[in-house]
């Protein structure tokens, strides 16, 4: 139980460091460099795409069930979201659908 506790401590410290760093660097009236300001605008879009791929990294397309449950789950999330644009509905509907698929269809 020491390893998990240390892991959590490391994650907490890095997160806290990231949150405090800008306030330490740009604490006075220093102007933000344009490249940093630009990255601040566009990086969130790219990172979210990266995280979607990260979540699907263990999907095996060459062995059963060939990523079909994940593909259906993602399709349900996308269709619900384009239809209603309600974040909780998209997440809840997609997750429920995926859980039903892996528990009852692709067992």
């Amino acid at each position: 139980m020491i390893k998990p506790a240390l892991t959590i401590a490391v994650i907490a410290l890095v997160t806290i460091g990231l949150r405090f760093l800008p306030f330490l660097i740009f604490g006075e009236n220093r102007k933000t460099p344009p490249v940093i300001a630009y990255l601040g605008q566009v990086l969130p879009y790219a990172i979210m795409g990266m995280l979607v791929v990260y979540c699907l990294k263990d999907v095996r397309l060459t062995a059963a069930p060939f990523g079909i449950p994940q593909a259906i789950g993602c399709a349900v999330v996308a269709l619900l979201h384009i239809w209603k644009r309600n974040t909780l509905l998209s997440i809840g509907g997609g997750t429920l659908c995926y859980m039903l698929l892996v528990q009852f269809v692709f067992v």
Partner: protein
Amino acid sequence: MKQSVLKTAFLDTIPVMTGYLFLGFGFGIALQQAGFGWLWAAAMSLFIYAGSMQYVAIGLLSSGAGLLTAAVTTFLVNARHLFYGISMVDTYKGAGKKKPYLIFALTDETYSLVSRLPQGTNRMQYCFWVSLLDQIYWVGGSLLGSWAGAVLPLNFTGIDFVLTALFLTIFLEQWLSAADHRPAIVGVAVTTGCLVLFGADLFLIPSMAIITAILALSPKTSKEAQHD
């Protein structure tokens, strides 16, 4: 006076409350499924307090990942907080004793509320209540989920998909509201390419480095495109 600021803050945070109770609940269940009970859930939601990273952390904990991997992954997943911070530097000037907590508790959702507020006398009080209420929802949701995962006789297999669904929903929301889709395409394309090239254990760091390099080297073209 303080009560009315609290009331305004509470009403504004109701959407975050539903989201955090729901996502915190999912986190608590998933963590419980991975073999870590309510004390772990409480510690993570109190001290890390970063939703997506806590989901990613479940994988790190259950796979026994090394501390360096944990640190690098946290840096990559939470690097966006640098940019939230940069845009709040001026706002949080003069926040006094509350400032450390305001900075610590600056999550995506809290940022979305405190970054759009007009100037006012009780602004700091408002930001403080929003930050505190949001964390209470998050910790509460985590504990409820942890309890449900241990007690309810339900099969939660597949609950980990809530993370995929969360990121995909945010990705779609950004896509639908953005004029320039290139950053999103760069993110997906580079990461997919790196996954194929480097494999599932090593692809995150090269992905992030290449994405940052591509985006940093192309600001002028994007800005011109937006103006044209």
